[in-house]
């Protein structure tokens, strides 16, 4: 895994360096103007965040029912990365919203669900840090319940009308605004590769910590 680290870093760095050029070249959106360009980083951030959430959830299931320690390492790493990308989404979103809708925050389905999932996984990290013995299993349960919760939160808040752009914007991008599709999917790829890069690095950290703990235990014998 460590061998792909350096080439992956280079690729991600180049992609991120190129992204502003591509984004500046993309066409303007009719109603929102310049501020809509936040979309090229905001939406891929959320894609990365939910990838992290589902990675953590599935790794947690594997850890809980198979007991494999590397699954636990993947889960812990994925959760931390998901929280980071979620924070990016939650900060860039209100910045976009303030200009586009006039308010910093709206209690609609997407925002509420995003905030709640972020809180659940911050809870995951808190449990891992302060939960005491057995906290890795408890955190795994939190991740599983959090993942299962996503559709319920979305549906329950969705009853009211929502100001948030509809989900259908993304799949129809190629048809309605072809100029935007290119930069958008480029940014999605960049963020996904960045996610993979961060996950690799973070799992490496966990593995080293486990090796260190093993060394300490061996020394005590």
């Amino acid at each position: 895994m460590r061998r792909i680290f350096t080439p992956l870093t280079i690729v991600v760095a180049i992609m991120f360096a190129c992204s502003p050029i591509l984004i500046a070249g993309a066409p303007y959106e009719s109603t929102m103007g310049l501020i809509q360009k936040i979309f090229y980083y905001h939406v891929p951030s959320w894609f990365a965040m939910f990838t992290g959430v589902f990675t953590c959830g599935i790794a947690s299931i594997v850890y809980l029912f198979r007991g494999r320690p590397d699954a636990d390492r993947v889960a812990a790493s994925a959760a931390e990365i998901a929280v980071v990308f979620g924070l990016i989404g939650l900060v860039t979103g209100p910045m976009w919203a303030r200009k586009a809708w006039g308010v910093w925050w709206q209690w609609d389905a997407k925002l509420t669900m995003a905030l709640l999932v972020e809180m659940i996984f911050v809870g995951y990290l808190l449990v891992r840090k302060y939960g005491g013995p057995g906290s890795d299993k408890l955190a795994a349960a939190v991740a599983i319940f959090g993942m299962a919760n996503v559709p319920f939160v979305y549906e329950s808040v969705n009853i009211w009308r929502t100001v948030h752009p509809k989900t259908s914007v993304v799949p129809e991008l190629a048809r309605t605004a072809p100029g935007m599709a290119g930069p958008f999917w480029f940014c999605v790829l960049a963020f996904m590769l960045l996610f993979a890069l961060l996950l690799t690095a973070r799992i490496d950290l966990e593995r080293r910590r486990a090796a260190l703990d093993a060394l300490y235990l061996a020394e005590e014998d």
Partner: protein
Amino acid sequence: MFARVAWLVLRKDIAIEVRSREILYTTLFFAVSCVLVFSFSFVREGRAVPDAAAGILWIAIAFAGTLALGRTFERERYGETLRALLLAPAPRPAIYVGKLLGIVALLGVAELLLVPLIAVLFQAELFDRPLLLIALLSTGTLGFASVGTLFAAMLVRARTRDVLLPILLYPITVPVMIAGVRGTSALLATPPDEPSAIMWIAMLACFDVVFVTLALWTFEPLMIE
């Protein structure tokens, strides 16, 4: 076997509680003081903000429930009975169900007190559709307690269990709270909005099924010491 174990665990909890009534009284009084504190925030010129009653009812249930969960498992930890329960040759999910039913019963008694109290304090016509209200409260309480019992059981050994339980429980039970509050508001509307209330009850029932199943499924691997 499963049902018998669950019933035995439930009966044990009720027997202990009936003798001392400690958790019952303290939870009830805490719920009442919750209602009062929130009332002061949301009463303007002597009258409550409209629809505050629904929100306050469910907040009181959530806070009182968290407290009751913490106290019930603290009692188990103090008597070291949880380990004894787990060592018993009984299916572990049955132990979970027994404790769950105990918590639901406790919260049910609290709600028996809270609903008339709120009806009186906020002039809320909570008894217009009693069956729907009972369905709403029971599905909501079950949903809240199902997640809460699992987390409280797992946190028994943690040092920071008191603060971690709300931190973990509240975000995950937000759909229950949303459905409960909106459902109660629908029932308090004039005339009572029955289709909405039934929709929220259905959603709560779905939540209950999913999360009780999930809890039963994960209880066994989680409680392995």
